[in-house]
């Protein structure tokens, strides 16, 4: 047997790409995500997937994935801390809202977020900022 401990699991979950909510199985080998399979017991997709669904694992370990907030400065996009990025967002949102009104701001939510996160997002959009300008990436 190999020296490292052999671990393989298939984790049932929901495809993050759109609002359909297809069931998928994530293939995890030795702690690393390596593949996606359609989940046959999922009533939504019954063992079928679209092209995006089959690639649902790919962004996780992608070298192109953003792992830090980026702030646009004169030299271009630069890595920043979360504190700095959030302070910047708050200050600018406030500024724009005061100057042009709440409807000058729009919010774009993501299907990759959980239901609860998206609920909070729209709450923030409507109650804190005061606009109904909200949409999401999974409008089908």
């Amino acid at each position, binding site marked *: *047997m*190999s020296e490292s401990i*052999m671990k393989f*699991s298939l984790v049932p979950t929901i495809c993050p790409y759109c609002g359909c909510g297809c069931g998928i199985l994530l293939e995890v080998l030795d702690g690393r995500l390596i593949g996606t*399979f359609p989940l*046959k*017991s999922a009533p939504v997709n019954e063992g*079928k*997937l679209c*092209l995006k669904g089959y690639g649902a694992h790919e962004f996780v370990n992608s070298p192109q994935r953003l792992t830090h907030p980026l702030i646009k400065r004169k030299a271009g996009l630069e890595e920043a801390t979360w504190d700095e990025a959030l302070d910047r967002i708050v200050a600018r949102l406030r500024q724009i809202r005061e100057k042009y009104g709440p409807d000058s701001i729009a919010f774009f939510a993501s299907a990759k977020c959980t239901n609860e996160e998206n609920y909070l997002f729209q709450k923030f959009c409507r109650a804190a900022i005061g606009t109904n300008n909200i949409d999401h990436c999974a409008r089908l």
Partner: protein
Amino acid sequence: MLGLAKLIHSLFQTGEINGFLGYKEANGQALPFFFTEDQPQGLASLLNSKLVPRYPLEKFLLEICRAHPEAKIGLLARDCDARALTELVKLNQLQPGEVFPIAVPCCPSDLHGCSACSHLDPRSRKGGELGLPEKGVGKFTTLEQLEKLELAERFRRWQEEFAKCIKCYGCRNVCPVYVCRECSLEDEHLIPTGQLPPDLSFHLIRAVHMAGFCIDCGLCEEACPAEIPLRLLYRGANRIVERLFGYKPGAEGESSPFRKTGLANVK
């Protein structure tokens, strides 16, 4: 505990296998699962494969074997799984003694003698009774019915089927004998990109590549969101190989008339 679970447990104890790919019940659904010797208590939830949906266990097996070449792995092998394993050995992806298949016969395929068994798909018993649909080829048509048609009509009917394709690559992605490092289906010189349905070449290339390799498990057809009768298509491709070379993919002991180069296992 199922007799099967007891058997696997004893194989763990004698060291004949270190892991076992099968199915278990979790949260009310049947899922493919990798049982390991360090957690034998998990075997209590092992399911007999006859009543659960099929997944290409061989694909998971290949991934594990590539990362752990010394591991000895057992696998719950329905007839289609067994044929896939045989074909994967011929394709140089697995060593003959590397896998310990535990046979569970339950297959409606032409490639196996027990074609009367239609446990997994009772509809297949009625194959042909419904005849050809008005458009396309249909899921219940037999090769014999199809071959009676004029070539032009057959071609037209297949084109009607292919027009439904959304190019999800599911047929290839779930295929147990798809082991290629590079895939012609992703070659933009062979198949023009940016159009749906994809060019006819998409289906023709895949059909030609399945000839002499397809083990007729039917997983491609189950995965197809457009319900294209792919199993029938590849059966047709296989039949040509059978007529020319007398070869049926998945048959033990017979060597394939096809050689694929550059496929040696990474071990």
